[in-house]
């Protein structure tokens, strides 16, 4: 039974190995990847369902050694929820890649790398060991970088270099944090660490390790002062990849902050939370204003990720049960919306005779493509938080939790910041689907990427906007679970 938690990690991993053998038949490779990810989503849903029904996390001990000594894989509500969210988005990313006209999806390593990205991300969400987290993030980073480096964009290699360099630096920070925590507490198991930190909060290197972990997760989530690599990177990556990186991969940092404030550093959480609120508000304004000032749809959406991550960080920063639940809803919804929007931007670029998502190219091109226009419009409403989309639910919950926490000033700032979202998304819609073409030499290609994946994502966005009850119940249960770190510790250390 405990082996259940291994399935979400092992299925994509073995799938990637087998996909390597299918190198000569890229079409079959794609279909195989779709099947593997479908199976993985089923396994993860079953894991999440089991965890929710029993109220206990599923813990697997590597090699049969008990928790502080062996490596533990812990499938709890938070890890399971985020793993399921990522795998659903990655599944739809494969659907998009199957229908894409890009050269890079024909690259023999594309689908194996895509599955390795899934393995790394799922593993990072489900692991119960800090060093294992480092290993899985490296797996994630290396596959993400190679997927960008094979982009048919001229500057793919430059973007990949920037991302890889900064990610190796983040890995160095994480490794240093591992070292400082190990020398202070003699363990790297998250549950064991949490227990020992609570017993002895005066270790001299504790603040250092908090700072190092903060830096790591800030780089991973592209939080304001560490964001500089992200817009370049997301502009040059292939659409199917950048839609994944900008939606689910940045959530790794969000996961890290949640674990830090609710499990590892509960006593020291106030300091982290204050920092998160400040950085979140700065991120909302910086991201929003930068998105207004861009000349490229993909780049605009990358900056918009910066702002939306800011909203999530503020939710984590308030730290009340309501606001953490709201941040979780926001996390899930933003992943779906952002993936759909980037796919639509990539779709427009694929239909233009010059392959670019710059406004100079795509302005006015949308007149013959009304379906994409409707999808983009709904996505824009969702990003700005207007009913009946899921974006409205997440913003409403977040603002409500802020009012409950009597943080009126921050709520006001956030409301102003979310106006920026409305401005840039509506301006992009107006330019692409309303205004006349600026450059008459740009012609519309007869065929481009397929619209199935973004249509499915937008469908999910609308569904979660109208029927949000199951997701909210799940996040409420997750928040209750996060509020009891002692249960996590006993489940990992004491359970069999």
């Amino acid at each position, binding site marked *: 039974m405990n082996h259940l938690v291994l399935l979400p990690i092992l299925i994509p991993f073995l799938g990637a190995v087998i996909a390597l053998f299918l190198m000569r038949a890229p079409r079959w490779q794609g279909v195989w990847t779709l099947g593997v990810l479908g199976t993985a989503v089923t396994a993860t849903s079953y894991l999440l369902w089991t965890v929710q029904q029993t109220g206990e996390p599923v813990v697997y001990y590597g090699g049969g050694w008990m928790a502080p000594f062996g490596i533990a894989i812990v499938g709890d509500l938070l890890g399971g929820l985020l793993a399921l969210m990522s795998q659903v988005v990655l599944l739809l990313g494969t659907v998009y890649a199957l229908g894409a006209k890009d050269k890079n999806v024909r690259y023999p390593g594309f689908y194996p790398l895509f599955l390795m990205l899934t393995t790394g991300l799922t593993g990072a969400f489900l692991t119960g060991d800090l060093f294992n987290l480092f290993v899985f993030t490296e797996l994630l980073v290396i596959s993400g970088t190679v997927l960008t*480096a094979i982009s048919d964009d001229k500057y793919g290699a430059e973007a990949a*270099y920037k991302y890889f360099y900064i990610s190796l630096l983040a890995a160095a920070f994480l490794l240093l944090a591992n070292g400082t925590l*190990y020398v202070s507490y003699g363990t790297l198991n998250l549950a064991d660490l949490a227990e020992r930190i609570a017993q002895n909060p005066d270790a001299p290197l504790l603040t250092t390790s908090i700072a190092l972990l903060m830096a790591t997760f800030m780089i991973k989530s592209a939080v304001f002062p560490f964001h500089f690599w992200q817009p370049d990177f997301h502009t040059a990556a292939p659409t199917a990849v950048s839609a994944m990186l900008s939606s689910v991969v940045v959530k790794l940092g969000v996961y890290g902050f949640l674990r830090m404030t609710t499990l590892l550093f509960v006593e020291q959480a106030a300091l982290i939370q204050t920092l998160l609120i400040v950085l979140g508000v700065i991120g909302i304004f910086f991201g929003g204003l930068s998105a207004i000032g861009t000349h490229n749809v993909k780049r605009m959406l990358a900056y918009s990720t910066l702002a939306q991550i800011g909203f999530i960080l503020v939710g984590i920063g308030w730290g009340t049960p309501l606001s953490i639940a709201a941040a979780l809803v926001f996390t899930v919804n933003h992943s779906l919306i952002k993936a759909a929007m980037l796919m639509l931007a990539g779709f427009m670029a694929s239909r233009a005779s010059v392959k670019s998502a710059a406004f100079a190219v795509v302005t006015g091109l949308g007149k013959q493509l009304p379906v994409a226009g409707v999808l983009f419009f709904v996505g824009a409403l969702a990003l700005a938080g207007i009913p009946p989309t899921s974006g409205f639910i997440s913003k409403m919950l977040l603002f409500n939790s802020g009012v409950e926490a009597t943080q009126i000033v921050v709520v006001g700032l956030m409301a102003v910041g979310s106006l920026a979202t409305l401005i840039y998304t509506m301006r992009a819609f107006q330019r692409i689907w309303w205004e006349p073409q600026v450059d008459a030499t740009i012609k519309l290609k007869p065929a481009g990427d397929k619209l199935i994946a973004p249509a499915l994502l937008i469908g999910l966005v609308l569904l979660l906007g109208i029927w949000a009850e199951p997701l909210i119940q799940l996040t409420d249960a997750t928040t209750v679970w996060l509020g009891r770190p002692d249960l996590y510790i006993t489940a990992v250390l004491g359970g069999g």
Partner: protein
Amino acid sequence: MELLTALAIGSLFAVGIYQMLRRNVIRSAIGLIILSSAINLFLLSTGAYLGTDPAYDGAANPSDGLPQALILTAIVISMGGLAFVLSLLGVISARYETSNMDEIERLTR
């Protein structure tokens, strides 16, 4: 011994960070290599010097085996990463015909 280790770690960090901040992309990649060595040395100092004997079952005064395992994993990962960095640098310097960071800035337009 402790002073020597501390000095070695400190100077490696200093050199690594200085090289990382240089304008030349190849120098900054070398800085990353030095920095990862500094971190490995730091991990080694977190427990490996506590005992005098190698870590095996029944040793009289065993040293901590975990930091060594961590370093082994970290070395393998950083080797793979650095190999990829160098191959990317090859592509970049062939395409831009320079190794100055300020001239490799075409994405921000």
